[in-house]
C-alpha cells in the first residue's frame, strides 16, 4: 500500500486515492487559499481495515429484515475493526498539524450503488450530509473517530436511501477520511458564487454566528446577501432569524452529541452578523475560488480570530 496518509500539500497528486471533498481543499491549499491544515486517509486504508469483515457484513445483510436491524449489525462490525494505522495517524497529526489539540474528522464516501461507484459531491449526486463528520475531536480520539466515519457508511439512512437490503453491492462502498485542524468559528457563511435559486447573475451568501452546521442544517436562518457577480455591488440584504448558534464541546464518544446550542441575544439577532468589509472580502474570495475550479462553487467558510478559513468547496449541484 502506498502511504496511507497524504498531507495537504501533496494531496492534488493523490486525488484518486481520496474523495472529492479532500481533493477540492487540496487544490485550494495549492492555490494559496487559507484552508485548515490537515491530511487525508486514503480509500486503501478503508479497504485494508474492512476487507476481512466483508463475509460477516454480507451475512449480516442476509439475516436482517429491516434497514434498522442491518444498520445496528454493521455498525458493531465496523467500529470494532482492528485499525492498523493508529501510529501512522498519530504521526500524521504531529507532522501535518503540529501544535493543534482538536480536530475535525470528516467522511468522504464513495458508495457503490447497483454495482457502480458514485463519487461524493460530484455534480451528479449530492451526498451532502449523508455521512458523518466529527468535530472538536481530541487528538487521542482521532483514530477511533476514523472508524466512526467508516461506520457511518452503514447508518440506517444510507441503507434506506440506497436500498441496501436489496443491493449487496453497496457493502463494497469505500471511504476516505479528512482530518483537519479544528477552527472555532466566530462567524460562518455558506456562499454560492452564482445564486442557484433565482437564476440571475447574482453572488449569494448566508451568514450567521458560530459553526456552519447551524446554517447547513437549517436550524437558523442566516442573514442573506445577494451581490452583483460582475461588480460585487450589494443588491439585497435580508436580516435572518439567527435564533441561536452552534458550538462544540470536546467529543469523547460517537454516541455523544457534542453540540452546544446557545440562544442569541435580541441585539445580535437585530443586527447583521457581517460588516460590509467582510462581505466584500468573501465576495472576492468566492470569485477567486470559482476561477480556480472553473465552475460556480458552493463554499462553506468560517471566520476565526478575524481570518477567513475555507472548510469546503464543491460545484453547485443543480440550479432552479
Amino acid at each position, binding site marked *: 500500500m502506498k502511504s496511507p496518509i497524504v498531507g495537504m500539500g501533496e494531496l492534488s497528486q493523490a486525488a484518486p486515492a481520496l474523495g472529492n471533498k479532500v481533493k477540492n481543499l487540496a487544490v485550494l491549499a495549492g492555490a494559496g487559499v487559507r484552508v485548515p491544515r490537515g491530511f487525508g486517509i486514503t480509500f486503501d486504508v478503508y479497504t485494508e481495515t474492512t476487507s476481512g469483515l466483508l463475509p460477516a457484513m454480507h451475512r449480516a445483510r442476509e439475516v436482517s429484515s429491516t434497514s434498522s436491524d442491518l444498520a445496528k449489525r454493521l455498525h458493531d462490525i465496523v467500529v470494532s475493526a482492528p485499525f492498523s494505522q493508529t501510529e501512522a495517524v498519530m504521526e500524521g497529526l504531529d507532522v501535518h498539524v503540529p501544535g493543534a489539540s482538536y480536530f475535525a474528522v470528516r467522511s468522504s464516501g464513495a458508495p457503490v450503488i447497483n454495482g457502480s461507484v458514485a463519487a461524493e459531491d460530484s455534480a451528479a449526486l449530492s451526498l451532502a*450530509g449523508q455521512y458523518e463528520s466529527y468535530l472538536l475531536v481530541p487528538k487521542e480520539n482521532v483514530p477511533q473517530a476514523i472508524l466512526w466515519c467508516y461506520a457511518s457508511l452503514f447508518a440506517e*439512512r444510507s441503507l434506506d436511501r440506497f436500498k441496501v437490503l436489496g443491493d449487496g453491492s453497496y457493502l463494497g462502498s469505500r471511504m476516505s477520511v479528512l482530518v483537519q485542524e479544528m477552527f472555532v468559528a466566530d462567524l460562518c457563511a455558506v456562499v454560492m458564487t452564482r445564486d442557484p435559486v433565482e437564476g440571475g447573475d447574482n453572488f449569494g451568501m448566508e451568514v450567521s454566528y458560530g459553526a456552519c452546521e447551524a446554517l447547513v*442544517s*437549517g436550524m*437558523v436562518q442566516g442573514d442573506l446577501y445577494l451581490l452583483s457577480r460582475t461588480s460585487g455591488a450589494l443588491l439585497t440584504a435580508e436580516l435572518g432569524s439567527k435564533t441561536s448558534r452552534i458550538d462544540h464541546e470536546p467529543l469523547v464518544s460517537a454516541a455523544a452529541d457534542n453540540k452546544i446550542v446557545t440562544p442569541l441575544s435580541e441585539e445580535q439577532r437585530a443586527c447583521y452578523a457581517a460588516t460590509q468589509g467582510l462581505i466584500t472580502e468573501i465576495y472576492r474570495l468566492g470569485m477567486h475560488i470559482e476561477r480556480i475550479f472553473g465552475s460556480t462553487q458552493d463554499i462553506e467558510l468560517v471566520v476565526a480570530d478575524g481570518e477567513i478559513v475555507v472548510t469546503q468547496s464543491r460545484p453547485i449541484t443543480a440550479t432552479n
Partner: protein
Amino acid sequence: MPVKTISGDTWRVGCHGNGPATGPVVIVRSQEDLGKVKEGDILVANQTDVNYTAQMLLAAAVVTVEGGRYSHAATFSRENGITCLIGAVGAMDELKDGDIVTVDTSDRTIKVESEEEE
C-alpha cells in the same frame, strides 16, 4: 378564493420547483411523523435533514419554519425540483394536518384553500 393567506418577513424561496403546488398539509414535528407523509402532500416541518429525504421526494412542496436559502431543505429541494419555502415562521401554528393549501413561491405565501374540520 382562499380562506386565508399567510406569509411573513422571514419567508424566503428555497426552490421554485414547478411553480405553485397544491395539496393537503402534513405537519412533521419529529422523525416519528415522517410516516404520515403521502405522495402529493405539503410537508411542513421546523427543519429537515438527510433523514427526511425519502418523504421530501414524495411531497408536492416542502415548507420549513427555520432555515435559510442555502439550508438542507432548500438545497435538497432545488436538486430535486421540489417547490420549497423556508423561514416560514408561523406556518406550523397556522396550518394543521389535512388543510388544503397552495404554496406559492412567486409571492412567498401559503394560501389556505380549505380547512380540515377540527
